[in-house]
């Protein structure tokens, strides 16, 4: 497959893809590709609207980057027109994930609010056990009693009930909360933001089981709000972007990634486009190391050797 020239897409108007990646409507992605799609929905955010603007803002911010496009594709945005309520939004998001999975792609959801994460995980865990890495200032573990009611505050509690999600790592919990949320159940471990700051990225990587595919859910509020202010529920005392970038680089090189999302970027609350740009840098880090994922898929039995350093690590 010949990758189009970066920047071949119209700079304004029309479909400008993420990093100028091939448009999935025009070119079918190769198996194992990182398949981006936007989910411009923010009805699952109980605090404020605005996250629906994120896919466009992140794509715009991504244009300044030059990222390998051989194993990457952009499926455009989920069409939520005429769909109302969280249940319908999850359903139509799942349709795109299903299409990507049929093509043996790896879904990369650009939210949207965090409630949408349920759609890709619920599908991915049907065929194999996965470890979920939840990067977030919040545990998103508010009570959920099995009703249709679904939002960004209780999405992880709902996901925790899925049988194929056998391990959950919550990274980034912080701030003053009503209760102690460090114990979320037998599947889960919580590493607070303060604890993360005391560990190296390699030590954090070691917590992620090496043998199991890993789904990475990134709520942008895991990053300190003074770096990434464009989000609806900012909590001071977060991670600097470089910490998350270093961890993502290690994950891309040393673990099998089943899916990714970047959610809760709210351009309506952003300082210029700082937060969207950080989101683009996080995705860039994964994409720049995606050849390691292709390698792992080709030789799954070998399990690629642990690679802590890589020339492809993106500059901070």
């Amino acid at each position: 497959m010949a990758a189009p020239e970066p920047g071949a897409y119209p700079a304004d108007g029309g479909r400008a893809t993420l990093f100028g990646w091939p448009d999935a409507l025009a070119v079918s992605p190769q198996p194992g590709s990182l398949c981006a799609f936007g989910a411009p929905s923010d009805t699952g955010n109980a605090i404020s609207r605005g996250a629906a603007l994120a896919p466009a803002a992140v794509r715009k911010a991504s244009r300044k980057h030059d990222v390998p496009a051989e194993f990457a594709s952009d499926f455009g945005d989920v069409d939520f027109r005429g769909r109302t309520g969280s249940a319908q939004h999850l359903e139509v998001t799942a349709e795109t994930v299903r299409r990507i999975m049929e093509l043996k792609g790896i879904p990369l959801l650009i939210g949207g609010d965090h409630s949408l994460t349920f759609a890709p995980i619920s599908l991915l865990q049907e065929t194999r056990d996965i470890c979920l890495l939840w990067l977030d200032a919040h545990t998103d573990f508010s009570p959920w009693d099995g009703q249709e009611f679904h939002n960004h505050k209780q999405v992880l509690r709902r996901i925790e009930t899925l049988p194929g999600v056998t391990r959950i790592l919550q990274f980034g919990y912080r701030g003053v909360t009503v209760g102690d949320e460090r114990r979320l159940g037998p599947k889960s471990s919580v590493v607070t933001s303060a604890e993360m700051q005391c560990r190296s990225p390699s030590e954090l990587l070691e917590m992620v089981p090496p043998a199991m595919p890993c789904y990475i859910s990134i709520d942008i509020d895991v990053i300190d709000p003074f770096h990434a202010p464009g989000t609806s529920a900012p909590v001071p005392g977060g991670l600097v972007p470089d910490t998350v970038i270093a961890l993502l680089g290690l994950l891309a090189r040393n673990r099998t990634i089943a899916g990714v999302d970047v959610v809760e970027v709210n351009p309506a609350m952003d300082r210029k486009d700082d937060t969207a740009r950080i989101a683009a840098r996080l995705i860039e880090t994964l994409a720049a190391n995606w050849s390691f994922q292709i390698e792992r898929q080709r030789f799954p039995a070998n399990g690629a050797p642990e690679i802590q350093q890589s020339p492809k690590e993106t500059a901070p």
Partner: protein
Amino acid sequence: MLDPGSSSTPPDPSFDADARTEPRDDDRLLVLSDDVVIESEGPGYLVLANLELSTRVRLSRPLYEFVRLFREPSRVADLVPGEVRQRLKPQLEMLMAKHVLLDPDVEGPRRELRLRSNVAYRFCNSPAFDPRSPTDFTIIGLPCDSESDCDSRLAPEALRRKSLDYPFRRAIENNLPCGWFDADTGRWILKGASLSDAGDIAIEHGESQASLFVRVDKVLEECRQGGSTPIILGGDRGATETALKTVTGNGAPTIARLRADGSLAVPDIGKAIYLSIDLAIASAAYSDPRSKAAETLATLSDLKERVVALGRTNPIIAIDLVGLDMRGDAGRLGAALGCELALTAMEAACGSS
């Protein structure tokens, strides 16, 4: 002519008897006050309120019709016959006492400034302040910002609204305050500590600091009864100077400041301190994520530890949060930071008492 007295309460006979001996004042000019509005009405009655003086009075409809006649300055003698005038006398006295009808030749009373004003949200949804049952901490808004170019008049409101993320709760089994969990330090804070919210100190924009100080003094005095520690939600940095005078009385004020650059000067060990938290740290960090302020906030757990450590060496007798500039998006982050630091500082004060 009207006979409005017939449908309302019967006049007091003793009053009538006295009245007959007094000199006639029916020739006095009376006028309906500009400040009076109809506040509510029901079957057969209306409630009039003087908005300026906060008085209200319930009138029968006939009496209301009579009062309306004084839209233009009028004499009672010109409006009603003699025997009705006598029966109306108590009502007229009452209407004048309530400042519904005014004598245009007599200067009216000056409005007393209210000490405190109601607020839309209470900090952490805590109970409203009740002087009869003091709490460990009392929240007081001081939305003054005339001493600087800091736009802080809406800061107490922003802090209170954000604080609803951290609702104050009491445990069902023992009725004791539950406190909160601080994930940054891995500790429970404020377990058993009670708090209440006294609303905002009333501000007259444009008044002098001296005039405001009188009210700040009265309110803080009221809130500190029973040993409650005041938590003052400013306001610009001028709020600190005003509140400090009251809190320290004549004693030398010892103030510990968490400054806008993130530094926290540690005072002499053992001295009682007024802890002032400058939320301009949020604006500083927002405008430059590589600044010292941003660095301090990125390791908020360390900063919290230092605030709590301060409480171990020095009694904290009052806390304020000042300098939260609500212009631009830094205000939103500053409010979130302010709530975290307020609760941490309160925990520090618990450790110190």
